[in-house]
């Protein structure tokens, strides 16, 4: 009995201790991150970036005096868990803006977000989140996957490729951009081989690559995250494939060189929408300082920019006197050529197009496991591609 009583006291104490105190002038932000799930290889840095950016924004005076309060939680890349967290943020914390993560859950939350009028910043740059007619409350800061995959195909074509293959995990993140890529590849006259599925948690891709070897493509798209990308590249080197890889923005970072080593040199090309951590751009100084001497990856930068843009939107919304979901949307849609200090290309949202920009930088892994810049690419921003 004593034990039970203790338990009750302890529970009550916990509850009281951590009862959320509502302070005046505080804007709560829900955080849905993957710290322990299949995309935690890149999700961890992203989560930490969001926390660091919140601290930085608050140190700079917050949202004109209102402090941001980020409530970060792990959802382990599980859609139902994301829905649970979302409901908790809405009913308990009463948020109207959320920093979210994956493609699957962001798409899954679309109907709820629209119904509840909550602005949802995702780390998923899925093209079908860019049409305000369908998804008025979804925003993100990187070049959308569909534009990235077109840029990747174009890069392969310009490098003299004739045969092309798509490798991706069987997950919305991997699958959603594929139709745009295929359509574009066909339009530029590439021969497309059979798709290969390599899961996010794969530790071996030999069978898929052996199968791909029969078609022997010049270039292949990898739509996974860093860990599985490293597996593919290492196995490709082991099997002696001549195929080069163009990689989506979550599969290519500073860690890829460490994980894949020599195998990545001359084989990996990443479609990167942000400046890598520590790059020589004006906005990077604060980012590096916030990390406190730790070497972070470019995903940290992505998260930083996402929070920066959110803060800018909040400031404009506050000035307009409408600090809620629809008010934030209206404020964000006034953002035009927003300068992120070189961390990304200038960002523009309009009421008919939520694509932040269509510019990305192609990087490769050169000698000494360094990320070398190949070139900056700007794809045409065509109205017909909105939401695709």
């Amino acid at each position, binding site marked *: *009995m004593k034990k*039970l009583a203790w338990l009750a006291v302890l*529970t009550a104490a*916990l*509850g*009281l*201790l*951590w*009862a*959320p105190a509502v302070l005046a002038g505080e804007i709560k932000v829900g955080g849905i*991150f993957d*710290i*322990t799930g299949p995309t935690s290889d890149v999700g*961890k840095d992203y*989560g*930490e970036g969001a*926390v*660091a950016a*919140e*601290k930085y924004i608050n140190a700079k005076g917050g949202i004109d005096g209102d402090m941001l309060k*980020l*409530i*970060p*939680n*792990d959802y382990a890349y*599980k*859609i*139902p868990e994301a*829905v*649970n967290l979302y*409901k*908790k943020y809405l*009913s*308990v914390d009463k948020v109207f803006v959320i920093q979210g993560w994956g493609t*699957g859950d962001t*798409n*899954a939350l679309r*109907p*709820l977000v629209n*119904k509840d009028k909550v602005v949802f910043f995702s780390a998923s740059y899925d093209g079908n989140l860019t049409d305000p007619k369908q998804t008025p409350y979804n925003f993100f800061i990187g070049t959308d996957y569909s534009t990235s995959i077109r840029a990747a195909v174009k890069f392969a074509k310009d490098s003299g490729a004739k045969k092309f293959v798509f490798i991706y995990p*069987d*997950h*919305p993140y991997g*699958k*959603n951009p594929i139709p745009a890529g295929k359509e574009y590849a066909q339009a530029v006259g590439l021969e497309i081989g059979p798709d290969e599925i390599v899961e996010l948690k794969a530790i071996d891709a030999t069978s898929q690559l052996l199968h791909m070897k029969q078609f022997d493509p010049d270039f292949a798209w990898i739509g996974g995250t860093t860990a599985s990308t490293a597996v593919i590249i290492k196995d490709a080197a082991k099997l002696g494939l001549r195929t080069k890889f163009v990689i989506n923005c979550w599969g290519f970072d500073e860690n890829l060189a460490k994980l894949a080593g020599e195998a990545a040199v001359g084989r990996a090309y990443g479609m990167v929408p942000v400046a890598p951590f520590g790059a020589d751009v004006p906005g990077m100084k604060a980012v590096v300082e916030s990390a*406190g001497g730790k070497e972070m990856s470019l995903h940290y930068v992505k998260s930083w920019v996402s929070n920066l843009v959110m803060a800018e939107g909040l400031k404009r919304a506050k000035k307009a006197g409408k600090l809620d979901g629809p008010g934030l949307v209206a404020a964000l849609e006034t953002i035009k050529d927003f300068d992120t200090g070189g961390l990304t290309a200038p960002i523009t949202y309009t009421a008919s197009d939520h694509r932040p920009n269509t510019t990305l930088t192609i990087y490769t892994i050169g000698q000494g496991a360094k990320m070398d810049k190949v070139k900056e690419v700007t794809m045409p921003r065509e109205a017909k591609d909105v939401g695709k």
Partner: protein
Amino acid sequence: MPCGLFFSRYEKDDAIFQTTWLKVWMALLFVFLLTFPLYADQANGLLGLNLTNMMNLIFIYIVGAHGLNLLTGYTGQISLGHGAFMGVGAYTAGILANLGWPFYLALPAAGLMAAAVGMVFGLPSLRLRGLYLAIATMAAQFILDYAMRNWEGLTGGSAGLIVPSADLQGLGIDFTFDSDRSFYYLALVFAVLATLYLKNLTRTRTGRAFVAVRDRYLAAEVIGVNLFKYRIMSFGISSFMVGIAGGLWAFYITIISDEHFTMWLSVQYLAMIIVGGLGHVLGGIFGAIFFVVLPELLRLPAEALTDIYPSIFGIFASLREMVFGLIVILFLVFEPDGLAARWHTVRAYWKLWPFSY
């Protein structure tokens, strides 16, 4: 006044509510459950939890856990496929709802579909027992998992299937169960129905046959229990209940994807009834509460520590999983008969208090 419970008729011995006190307590509990959403909001603010949401999940899991408890706790047949059977129910309900079926038809259909699938995969139970049956039902888990993920025309593949909220339009009533609070009452009804059904079933000939099959199947066969019939029936009823749970889940979360109905969910169901108490009606209830409440409670210190040390919140998130695992192990070590047994101990203590001897 008798110093204990002495029944002079079998009907009384078998009654669901045996004493007046029990009836009073049950009535109080029922009133509490009915009025819970009214004060949930205040408690939410105080605790930092979304209690209504948690209760809804608990109710859904209670329906499913009762199902598995019937199979594993009462009939002694293990199943590692119940996560997938829940998925069958969820997808059936979701697909039918998208075809315009009202939820009160889609839910039973979900249960029936899950029951049919469960009975097919329960066929090996005729020959296999114990670990071998566990492996055979695990095969069901893998097959169904694969189907949910790759039968895209039907299930929407890995992108998931969006399900409309349950509503009463078909009855001419303009009401939609689209909020946590409204769904609470829907889920409550099903949890109560499932509990009453399980409790009642254990009192019938069928329930006794299940227990006989569990305790000594040879003896059961000798005294005339048709093993084949009762094993398959147990699989059927059990899968029906877990299918209903899946249907409720679909209408509650309104998006279903294969990644929820994995091996892990099957194991979680087993863990629920083991932690709660195998072969007790209360086992499923306690197990469901334990597995929904504990991770949420563990989130509170993680969130609070994140407030203090924001830069290492990633570690707290991982710690949460580890602490959860540790607590489950400790429970199994110190309370191997489950929470239901502990509950009986506590109740027995208070029944005689303060004159226990």
